[in-house]
């Protein structure tokens, strides 16, 4: 009788479903996975080490590049850790702006996730639909920070600047007819808040549209129900957080349980799954899209009525205004010191966590009193999720590996750091 052998399949790092640079070494028996060994680190940029060599403020843009589909949430985790270390109280308006942009980021991330997840499972239309909506939200990013993705908008003590009064519009060009451009500009006539409000009004309908494509689709259900099931006990053991934990039926959300920014004033619900499979996690995230829209709407209402400063007036931490810097000696000195040396938090350590779209994103900062972090440790949710890969795919088929990678919402920027 011939010898029957398992064979290994090298999945990635150049694989369309590897979500970047995941290398999976799969030990397979036919189509069935016996063991999965993820090799990571192909995108390792030593962000934490780089941060040790730079003043605190310089590392904020690095945070965008960690989980590069939920940029502002990463910044939020970092600046929160520093604010705790420095003992800074953030102005209330900044807190609401942060809350709003955290939720916009969550929508951005989940749109990206559902698009790629569906694409992995074979429904490619979803991807293009979600990117249509991402476009609008990235425009909000651009309006507020000047950059579509890597915003670097949050600062220690607030945000870089107040929301713009005018929403940028499309210009007339030769590629589209004027009528089309006018139609695109219809929602952009007012302020950024008007634009976001308009988005909030139509977005729930669009989520319904996505759901008609997938939620009751038999093939989608066959591909996701009962795949990658994780029990609540195992979810704890494996260090899951965010939707991965909630999909397993645990109602844990930092926004509710350890509220930060303005979440304590927000009215929203936490969706929770039952079975802990890919389908439940899908439903949880779809509902989060709706809940995030609710939060954004509440923030818009508040921000309309409450103008105020968006960053602390302590010029040891936040730069003075341009005119102050040009006209006053003190302002000039502050500006110079801040941009050449930065600020020195007292020796100590702080860990701050935010509920990033993928789970708990935490920053652990150790300061020895210098103007650079002594050690910065980034706790990326995807790292813990990916480490459960072996357990989640064991006994499933090759096609399910792809579904599980999709459901984990993996982004290598944050896993490899």
């Amino acid at each position: 009788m011939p010898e029957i052998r398992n064979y290994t399949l090298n999945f990635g790092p150049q694989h369309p479903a590897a979500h970047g640079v995941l290398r999976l070494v799969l030990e397979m028996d036919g189509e069935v996975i016996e063991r999965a060994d993820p090799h990571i680190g192909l995108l390792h940029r030593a962000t934490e080490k780089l941060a040790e060599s730079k003043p605190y403020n310089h590392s904020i843009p690095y945070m965008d590049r960690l989980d590069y589909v939920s940029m502002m949430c990463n910044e939020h985790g970092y600046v929160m850790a520093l604010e705790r270390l420095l003992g800074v109280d953030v102005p209330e308006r900044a807190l609401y702006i942060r809350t709003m942009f955290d939720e916009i980021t969550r929508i951005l991330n989940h749109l990206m996730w559902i698009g790629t997840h569906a694409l992995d499972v074979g429904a490619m239309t979803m991807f293009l639909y979600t990117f249509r909506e991402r476009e609008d939200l990235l425009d909000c990013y651009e309006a507020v920070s000047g950059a579509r993705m890597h915003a670097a908008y949050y600062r220690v003590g607030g945000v870089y600047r107040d929301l713009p009064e005018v929403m940028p519009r499309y210009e007339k060009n030769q590629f589209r007819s004027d009528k089309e451009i006018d139609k695109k500009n219809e929602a952009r006539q007012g302020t950024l808040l008007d634009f976001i409000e308009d988005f909030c009004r139509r977005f729930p309908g669009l989520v319904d549209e996505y759901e008609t494509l997938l939620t009751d689709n038999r093939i989608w259900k066959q591909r996701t129900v009962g795949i990658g099931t994780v029990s609540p006990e195992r979810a704890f053991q494996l260090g899951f957080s965010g939707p991965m934990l909630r999909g397993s039926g645990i109602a844990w959300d930092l926004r509710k349980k350890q509220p930060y920014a303005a979440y304590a004033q927000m009215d929203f619900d936490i969706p929770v799954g039952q079975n802990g499979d890919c389908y439940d996690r899908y439903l949880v995230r779809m509902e989060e899209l709706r809940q995030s829209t609710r939060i954004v709407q509440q923030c818009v209402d508040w921000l309309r009525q409450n103008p105020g400063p968006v960053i602390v007036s302590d010029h040891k931490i936040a730069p003075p205004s341009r005119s102050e810097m040009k006209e006053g000696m003190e302002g000039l000195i502050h500006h110079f010191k801040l941009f050449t040396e930065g600020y020195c938090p007292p020796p100590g350590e702080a860990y701050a966590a935010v509920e990033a779209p993928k789970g708990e994103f935490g920053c652990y900062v150790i300061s020895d009193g210098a103007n650079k972090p002594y050690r910065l440790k980034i706790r990326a949710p995807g790292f813990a999720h990916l480490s459960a890969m072996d357990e989640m795919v064991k006994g499933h088929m090759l096609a399910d590996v792809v579904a599980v990678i999709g459901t984990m919402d993996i982004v290598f920027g944050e896993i490899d750091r």
Partner: protein
Amino acid sequence: MNESAKKASEIRRETLLENLNKRFTGDGFASSLRLGELTLVVPRERIVEVAGELRDNEAFQFEQLIDICGVDYSQYGRSEWTTDTASFTGFGRGVGAMQGSSAEMQRFAVVYHLLSVSLNQRLRVRVFVDDQHPMVDSVSGIWNSAGWYEREAFDLFGILFAGHQDLRRILTDYGFIGHPFRKEFPLHGQVEMRYDMDRQRVVYEPVTIELRTLVPKVIREDNRYAEGSNKPQDPADA
């Protein structure tokens, strides 16, 4: 956060601190509450025992290990900016790489961040490890998620975890030499890689770029933060 919730979480933290102090007494244990965060220092021989206790004891219930972080304390509290030497063009900026390690303190630490979902509280556990034998017992039997975090700490700091099933490098390249997050490891690394046309393959060579310090590390003794002592505090109770 509204005031009552804030109060409640403060009370929870203080109760937890009391419980920790009650439960973990003896040599090497220390606990502190700073910036609203609890830290427990554990002697390294007892980490597994303590971890099990923290997970299973009714008063703690830390079901989740959030993070494991390695720290290299060898240059803690050392400023790059030495302005003692003045020349006729001005002050010399001492921005050379910092050397040496302080002997009085243990060099490495492993920091565990724990989360209790049932009691909604967090705890930081720190274990100090010396330079000669950087080895701790693995907690992967208690929290499975520790597996990869310990691999990471091993990879980046060279801290060994006894009893770990699969202690391989995780983030660095295959065949990487050294532990890049140790303070003496240069920021730009040791080797660089290029494709050699003559030999028709990729070759590794010592780095050619030089390390520049754009902004020197400087420690300011700030009156606002001074609480009695201006000395950098011992990280153990920081």
